[in-house]
């Protein structure tokens, strides 16, 4: 059976909380979890850490983690923090 992507929208405020929720959804996800972060314009160290943890969880469960709608500033943060290789990016 083809894996089904689970799409989860992350709002601009309270990213850390949203990512924890996404982590819970990861339990049920198969194949791919897509986080729609198009509403996220800025990211702080806590959110970055949560994202890193989520990536770790996804890797453990062999779920592909994709970020959709990443703005260039956030993308640059992910590159500088060396986290970008752990995600795939969807436009």
């Amino acid at each position, binding site marked *: 059976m083809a894996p089904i992507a689970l799409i989860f929208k992350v709002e601009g405020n309270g990213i850390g909380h949203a990512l924890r929720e996404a982590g819970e959804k990861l339990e049920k996800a198969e194949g791919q979890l897509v986080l729609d972060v198009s509403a996220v314009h*800025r*990211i*702080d*160290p*806590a959110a*970055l*850490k949560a994202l890193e943890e989520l990536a770790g969880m996804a890797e453990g469960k062999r779920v592909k983690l994709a970020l959709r709608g990443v703005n260039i*500033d*956030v993308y*640059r*943060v*992910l*590159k*500088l*923090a*060396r986290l970008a290789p752990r995600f795939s990016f969807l436009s």
Partner: protein
Amino acid sequence: MPQNASSLSEERIAYLEGLVRQARTAAAVFTQCTQEDVDRIVKQMVLAGLEKAQHLARLAIEETRLGVLEDKAIKNMVATEFVYDYVKDKRTVGAIREFPERGLVEVAEPIGVIFSLTPITNPTSTVLFKCIMAIKTRNAVIFSPHPNAWRCCTEAVRIMYEAALKHGAPEGVFTCLESHDLQDNAYLMRHKDVGLIDATGGPGAVKAAYSSGKPALGVGAGNTPVYLEKTADLDMAVVDIITSKTFDNGTICASEQTVVIDDEIYDLVLEKFADLGSHICNEPETALLSRTVIDPATGFMRPMAVGQKATDIARVIGLSVRPSTKLLIAPIQGVGREHPLSAEKLCPVLAVYRAKTADEAFKICVDVNHAGGLGHTAVIFSRNNDIICKFGEVINAGRIIVNSPGSIGAMGGVYNDMVPTFSFGCGTGGGNSTTDNVNVYHYLNIKRVARRTPAHMWFRIPSQIYFNMNAVENLRQFVSRSTIIVSNPSLEQIGHVDVVRRHLPAETTVHVAVIPDAEPEAKVVTQGVETLNFYRADQIIALGGGSMIDAAKIMKLKYESPEADLEQLAAPFLDIRKRVVQYPTEKVNRARLIAIPTTSGTGSEITPFAVMFDKQNGRKVTFADYSLTPDVAIVDPQFVLSMPRGLTADTGIDCLTHALEAAVSIYASPYTDSSALQAIQLAFKYLPIAYENPQDEEARTMMHNAASIAAIAFSNASVGVNHALAHAFGARYGVAHGRANALMLPHVIAYNASVPTKFMPSPNQRAYSAHIRYAQIGDLLRLGGNTVDEKVKKLVAAIEQLLDRLAFPRSIAELGISREDFERAVPDLVKIAFDDPSWRSNPRLPLLSELQELLWSAYQGRPAAEHAARQQSA
């Protein structure tokens, strides 16, 4: 894994990696902050630092036992308030500087993670300073304080971090190593995620930073010489030196070390020092200081003396001084290991030297400068501006402080307008990459966004051009005392010289300089200049073909500027505006140059070019400068009516080549296009008529105009490869210039119309367009064709037909030059053509192999279309 990591435990590595990861994350997040964000954070940090200035000073004193509490508090305030005053309006985020007129924008890029070593001598002030720099530039810092100043530095970092965090800086932006360990430092210095090492401290720390292979700002020891010159304000100088040398007990590395005093004022100066609380050591006392303050084994100061009060040092070494003594002054007789006190002494011990002359004073200062102080700081007290300037020249120091205290002066912002800092760049003399006072711009990568800026173009021609039949009558208006007509025997014989003479004002004294009708040689120019000098000419009339006018141009140049070195002026250049050798502007004589062409082709009456024949080397030398442009051109067809058919054809094709090359030149502009296209049309229409019916006055007039109009175009757009090849070939085989051009022309058009192997750098061209330009010329001539390729081929065919009609040889072989001879000549021809400036404006950058190919094409005279096809396939 970074080097030296093998000796670190796994736990330790994990700890260090954690620090780096935290800093890297903070730096990454920090990139999202705006200028307003960082300015707000910096202001709050500065306020926090100011509030804790005394507290931190006290901690530093308690921990390090160095310096003076009050001075350390002041240093903390300078490190916050003064630095803030400097940085508050500086842009450090995004576009930081714009130069619209240059099309440049400088954009700030944070470094990321900075690893920072801080010293024992200025511990908290350095931390405060570096924290402010880092936040202002959106960087994260891992601090490694000196082990004996760890607690006070950690506290300074904490104060700065809390203030920063509270006002929006990312978590983890500052961290401090939990203990000092050289292996930790080594690990972090080589860590791939550390972008910069900022090492302020002893030579060991600085050397380690520079040895790490990472970009580093390393600021270490100095040895500040002071020249107290006899014209100085002595009272001010003595107070300033005491203020500086006792500030924080002399711990600032920019403080004065050896004062070189002029003999005339030496005793008086020492008296003043003594009056203000200095102890002047006698010989035994100096010897005692030498062996106790400086370690004879190393030649460096002993730690026990660093940052201590003068009285404490005296007490420890058994020197009897008054309790109020601020400074210990020791006269020395020289510089170097035999004179230990000439070394750096970060304590209130000052060496003095009596200099008998200014020359000696300079030499001693240079010696001190070279004895450990290169690139750092030097001080001079003088009212003599020449002495001050000379001192600035001979001393190698990033900071040369004039009539002010060295330590506080070097820090900037108090006694002068230098950039405030707590890190003194010492340049290459000190093994540093900068001589600057380190500040925010050293914590940034500055990116330059450079927009394409079209080169400035020009359009320069003679100020007056008279044309059409009897234009020579205009000579009447040019008043002259002494005019020299430069012409040749045949023109004199057929009466052209008399025509010119007749139209000159009656009061003008006229002499004729008759020269051979050939490209001028050096000897001809020299003789001509002698004639001009003999008659003190104020006007030169060049009557003749291109060679004659070129000769007159070079004569005028040498007559007006006898020092002009023709060999140098012919030096190669790529861009006439940036050429290395400039033509002379100073003139000992002045003469108006009027050019009257008697052929219709070279356009020399209009152009800034002149060609001379280098007989010795058998080559043509081209001169190019707008100062060579004639002042007046008289384009009167009466002088070309008798031109032989062969000459008509040769010069006419030269004219056409000028126009065609100008039309596709990288310097072509709307100003030159109009002339180039007009000249092409005229030449195509009237050249065959003038050739076949030499007495056709209209055709002669139009061809004469066409030559000057083409010259207007190529004077400003220049020519191309065709001329470079023709110059080389023509000079080698004595072939007329127009004929040599004709042999190359179809092949060069086919070459330029094909896809270049190498494009010519050309900011004014938006795309490669030579083929399109040729096609447009074909359209203008109504040659037909549907595609660009077809139109180019039709243009080439039309040119070949024209050449046939003018009875030109269609190959070099037809000239009777053997293949073997040509084969031997080709390598030289290629070299000479490549050195010729003509091709610098060609649309296609010619490779040497391509020049060779073109020469062979011209030799064989194979159809140019075939050549074009070969080029395309290549």
